[in-house]
């Protein structure tokens, strides 16, 4: 475990060193992210402040949905940035080099490139999120604890998603479009899942469990989650993770090592 953490730390340091080689690109990337966040934040703010409620949620609640989405989204991008760089490894066959190393390949291709730029942008997200959470009237500490737990649960689902993307990448060399589809779906959850009608709502919650990843933690925070939903969320997360690892092992056996 300590060895894996050491390797993870070194890979992250090397990734940061690489990022610092392109300073102009780095500055424009961070600026773009902050501007996009600010525009969307104020869009929701003005929209809901005029209508007062969105699908039954107040302005504060809607903002917390949005901010929680941003936090999870930034955290997954920060952790799994290497997945976005996986296609060239597969196309060139340099993934071979990863498979030859005495560690689990996920250390390199899943979490092996902590994105320093996302590390910088996530800090203001956290401050704003914490600020608004403490604006909730009668904030319950048990709910706050469960909120943290379900954020972790969301991270597990996000890990599963990225493992599936890697597996499909090995099987088809197609990665970029799958990432785009994943990001488009998650973006739908930047607003409360209740704004979508059935069957789309159930589809987002259980079939592709993005709802469990993004919306359930916030519902827990507001004390809106039923016990049944709690159990279902845990089971779906477990099954989803199991499926992603199954697909990954299958993909490794089918790997053809292109590029030579």
């Amino acid at each position, binding site marked *: 475990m300590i060895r894996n953490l050491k390797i993870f730390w070194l890979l992250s340091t090397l990734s940061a060193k690489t990022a610092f080689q392109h300073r102009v690109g780095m500055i424009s990337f961070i600026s773009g992210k902050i501007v996009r966040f600010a525009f969307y934040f104020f869009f929701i703010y003005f929209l809901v402040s005029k209508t007062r409620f969105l699908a039954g949620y107040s302005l504060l609640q809607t903002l917390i949905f949005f901010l929680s989405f941003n936090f999870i989204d930034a955290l997954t991008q920060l952790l799994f940035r290497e997945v976005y760089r996986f296609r060239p490894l597969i196309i060139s066959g*340099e993934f071979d*080099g990863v498979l030859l190393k005495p560690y689990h390949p996920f250390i390199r291709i899943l979490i092996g490139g902590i994105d320093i730029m996302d590390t910088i942008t996530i800090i203001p997200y956290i401050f704003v999120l914490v600020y608004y959470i403490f604006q909730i009237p009668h904030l319950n500490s048990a709910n706050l604890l469960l909120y943290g737990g379900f954020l972790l649960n969301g991270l597990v689902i996000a890990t599963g998603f990225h493992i599936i993307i890697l597996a499909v990448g090995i099987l088809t060399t197609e990665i970029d479009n799958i990432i785009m589809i994943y990001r488009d779906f998650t973006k739908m959850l930047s607003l409360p899942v209740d704004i979508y009608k059935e069957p789309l709502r159930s589809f987002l919650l259980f079939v592709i469990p993005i709802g469990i990843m993004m919306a359930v933690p916030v519902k827990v925070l507001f004390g809106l989650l039923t016990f049944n939903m709690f159990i279902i969320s845990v089971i779906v997360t477990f099954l989803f993770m199991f499926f992603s690892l199954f697909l990954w092992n299958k993909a490794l056996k089918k790997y053809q090592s292109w590029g030579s």
Partner: protein
Amino acid sequence: MITVKDLTKMYRVPLKTKNLLKDIFFRTYKEKKALNKISFQIGSNELVGFIGPNGAGKTTTLKILSGILYPSSGIVEVMKFTPFDKKQEFLKQIAFVMGHKNQLFWELPAIDSFKLNKEIYEINDEDFRNTLNELVELLDARNLVDQPVKTLSLGQRMRVELIAALLHRPKILFLDEPTIGLDLFAQAAIIRFIKEYQERYESTIILTSHYMQDVERLAKRLIMINHGTIIYDGLLKDLLETYSQQKLINITLLKPLSKDFAPPEKMQISYRFPQLQITSRKEDIAGVLSYMLKKVEFIDVTIEDEPLEEVIKKIFSRH
């Protein structure tokens, strides 16, 4: 050390038809056999040349032996491990260098990748320092390790790639075209290094190369593969004795050949004054030389074996 028995590897290749819709919605596949029930054994401290034309199955075999690819059938055992299980104890004892692939951080100096490998392979500080110094000396790479990899030439990059691959002193080294694209000097340096490394560390090396000089200089044993089947497995000298029936006689002439010079048909001649080269069967050499003594005036004669490349070409053309 390495045991391969009836190893088969199939690839699924989509079949193209003239019907685009059919290709998209009702695609059919054909199974392509990359390896067809090959078997061989390699002992410890052996250096084996693995040769064959493009697409013969050399790299596929190496990738299965190192655990990258999953075999379709057959038994593969390397140091009593099943490579595809990717056990850490196994991966810590092997290294795979591919001449056409980069395994270092492209934007950063090679030393950063070396330090990462130190942690990955759990090399202690002293061993790391000693091995690195030794390899840097052997490969004359002292001033290369601190430069970003992207600024190195192909030959320089190959030297630092070798250092990165050998820092953990692997027991088995797979070298896939390590000299591809290198100039003659860089090629010679790499070959010299491999030879020295193997003698010093007594490791097992499997080498694939299209340059027969590399194989000739390094390997005592050859495994030849074509269309996924092994067509020769034995000593290089035995191969030459069995298949090389001809010798090359090089004569440096004193005077140009006279117009009435008419050699017997069994002699193949190539002539550009002052060089005359005759290809002759081994048993005819004495006859050829006595004929030339009578017919031409010369200042030098050398007799060489047929180049390995020619012998191998002949063997492949038969299979």
